[in-house]
């Protein structure tokens, strides 16, 4: 791959767009030139982290009556995959989310999304600021 892929997605803040966003992620992953061990799993990995991140933004970061669009950015370089999901809501404390499946009997109904993202990506940050928060998820492709 000579150049990076950089895709910006803006859709209304609604779960009905999850399928579309997931499919875009799968297509991006298929176009990514990465080592064999990663190539097979990257489409489904990207689809799930996009879904979990977007749902998190809809449920926790955007206010319930939000008219703000969802803003998702996917960047793939030779080095790594970076997904950023932006929101303008009150945000949440990523560090306060319990490490779900390690501290429990596995029977919680909620809180599994961030655990899934943390399990599949190398680094996960939630950067809060006055105007726009961003959930940044990064995975090495080297």
């Amino acid at each position, binding site marked *: 791959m000579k150049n990076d892929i950089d895709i910006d997605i803006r859709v209304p803040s609604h779960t009905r767009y999850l399928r579309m966003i997931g499919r875009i992620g799968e297509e991006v992953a298929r176009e990514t030139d990465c080592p064999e061990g990663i190539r097979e799993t990257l489409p489904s990995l990207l689809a*799930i982290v996009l879904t979990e991140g977007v749902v998190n933004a809809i449920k926790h970061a955007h206010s319930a009556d939000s008219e703000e669009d969802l803003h998702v950015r996917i960047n793939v370089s030779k080095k790594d995959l970076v997904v950023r999901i932006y929101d303008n809501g009150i945000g949440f404390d990523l560090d306060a989310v319990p490490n779900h499946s390690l501290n429990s009997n*596995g029977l919680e*109904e909620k809180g599994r999304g961030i655990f*899934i993202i943390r399990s599949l990506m190398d680094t996960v940050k939630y950067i809060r600021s006055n105007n726009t928060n961003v959930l940044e998820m990064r995975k090495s492709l080297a």
Partner: protein
Amino acid sequence: MDLKTENMEGVAVLFVREDRLDANNSEELKTELRRLFDSGTKDLVIDLKEIHFIDSSGLGVLVSGYKNASILHGSLKLSNLQSQVKSMFELTRLQRVFDIFTSVDDALQSYR
């Protein structure tokens, strides 16, 4: 959401006839599970043959159903997990919680 429930050998078998179980449709499954339990169902098999994508919301609804079945001294078992679904169960270690079968027949066999 396209759901179909059949009574097979005294066990309710719920076929989820969608390709995804995610935050956009999982509440509908939760409502149907509640309806089944409220109407006296105790033993339930959920067939996920057509589901090729599940997220944490979908998993959460299945966990909720599992707990409700246990409270009623019944059971909720799963059949026909496709590869992405299986991976998600393994990642979240839920394969240790649920009884998972390769087919509806195998799941029914476990009740005989």
